[in-house]
């Protein structure tokens, strides 16, 4: 570890797990989201809300360099995690993703057994303990052990959508990341599965910092401590809309006493 990496310029790293400084993300020449400053607190649930196309999912994927997989996607600015800019050239994105896990919009279990779905991540992260125990405890933490304990050898695809999503959460927590990013984890699920996953999030925030993108404002109110509202606006000379961060505050304040008019309009459903 070199000295230059150790002391970043960000403030208050003790309470914040991730800090965004003037982050702009573009697809090719098209800017999806511009100039975001954000301090994501440690040990809390932070929700990103906003209309479609406001760049909230793009920002979320930017937090563990998932955007690297998208052709032509680039990020300007700094995303500071654990005292280091994760976009610095000397940073290993694999290392980043091992400490910042992710749950996706569509449940995406691997075409392997339920057991292997959990064990895969742990194994490539060099887990040396008792694998059976880890699989069981991860499935328990994700509230899906009872449903799967008798069919660990079956394919992960044999589960229902809601179960698959909890399997994917178990997969993410099995590698013990510090942060879990969730990209609209309930949008493909029925209300009962959604409820289960929301309960799960309340448990998980005791151990992990969570960032969740959601379309559903009630869900943001139910699960999050802090909420960031993103919006999109047309820019002069541009063909599309560019997203930006409107307001970031305690969830309660965002929904009851927002500072910005746009936030007020959105949370009261008077949007657009």
């Amino acid at each position, binding site marked *: *570890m070199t000295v230059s990496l150790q002391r970043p310029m960000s403030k208050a790293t003790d309470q914040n797990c991730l800090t965004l400084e003037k982050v702009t993300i573009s697809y090719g020449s098209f800017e999806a989201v511009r100039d975001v400053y954000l301090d994501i607190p440690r040990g809390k649930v932070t929700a990103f809300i906003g209309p479609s196309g406001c760049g909230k999912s793009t920002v979320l994927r930017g937090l563990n360099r998932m955007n690297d997989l998208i052709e032509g996607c680039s990020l300007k600015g700094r995303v500071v995690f654990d005292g280091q800019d994760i976009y610095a050239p000397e*940073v*290993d994105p694999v290392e980043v993703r091992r400490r910042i896990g992710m749950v996706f919009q569509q449940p995406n279990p691997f075409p392997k057994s339920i057991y292997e779905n959990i064990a895969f991540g742990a194994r490539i992260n060099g887990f040396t303990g008792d694998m059976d125990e880890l699989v069981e405890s991860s499935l328990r933490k994700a509230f899906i052990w009872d449903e799967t304990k008798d069919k660990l050898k079956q394919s992960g695809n044999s589960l229902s959508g809601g179960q698959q999503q909890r399997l994917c959460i178990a997969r993410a927590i099995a590698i013990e990341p*510090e942060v879990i990013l969730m990209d609209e984890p309930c949008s493909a699920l029925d209300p009962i599965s959604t409820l289960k996953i929301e309960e799960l999030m309340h448990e998980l925030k005791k*151990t992990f910092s969570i960032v969740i993108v959601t379309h559903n404002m009630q869900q943001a109110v139910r699960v999050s401590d802090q909420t960031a509202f993103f919006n999109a606006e047309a820019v002069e000379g541009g063909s599309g809309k560019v997203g930006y961060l409107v307001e970031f505050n305690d969830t309660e304040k965002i929904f009851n006493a927002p500072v910005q008019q746009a936030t007020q309009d959105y949370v009261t459903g008077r949007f657009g």
Partner: protein
Amino acid sequence: MTSFTPALQASSLRYDPALKRNRLDKFYNALSGFFSLIVVMPLFLVLVYVIIQGGRLISIPLFTQLPPAPGLEGGGIGNAIIGTFVVTIVASLIAIPIGVGGGVYLAEYSTGGPFARFIRTGNDILAGVPSIICGVFVYGAIVATRVFFGQSYTAVAGGIALAVLMLPTVIKTTDEGLKLVPKALSMGAIGVGASKFVTVTRITLPSAFTPIATGIVLAIARAAGETAPLIFTALFSPFWPEGVFNPIATMSVLIFNFAIMPYEAQNELAWAASFVLVVLILGANLLARWLRRFAN
């Protein structure tokens, strides 16, 4: 929970090139890149040699003269160029109507019953039949039986052999091209009282023109370069073509015959024919590619 100190290793995020996983990744990156280079290389080398060895022989006489007798110099491949066109046109005239018709049946009329499944499977098997077997078949069925005016080896026999080879491709591209046409379109035509025949010929087939044409162009290009089905059907001829019911020279058979001759003039003509053939075939492929882009 009182504190949220990093639970696992408080390690740096720094890329560590010494890590086994990173070394392996680098290795495989390089390996796959190296493999791609090996795969692409033959195309380069073949093209370079065909252009150097064949391209320098391109001249007017090459297109207008007959090949020389063994041991003599000069000459051209005029008869073989014409022959390749004749045989390929005969093959297209047979394979395109049959193939498009069969494809129309599979995509538009069949309801996925056992007969359609049988035809589709049969088509896949026919596509897998080695091209030399097509030649053997046409030899046995047409050349040896002398069905065409008592003639044995004929241009038509060669064309039929190539048609057998083209047929599966034409059927498959028609079948798949028609399936891409939105059902709503033909529903619309049927809805205003058009018969199935009118719907298929006026609405569905024209809508699927581009993918079908692309597939057919590729099938023709492939047939034009085929040799194995021709060597004992169309045979070869050192003379100008004498109608379609006589043996005929083709570029591909000329290349085969002249490549293994111990005379330099013949070897050179083989390279020249390769140049002409490759230019035609790659040209057809680029045309097909352009057609496809045009459709998107």
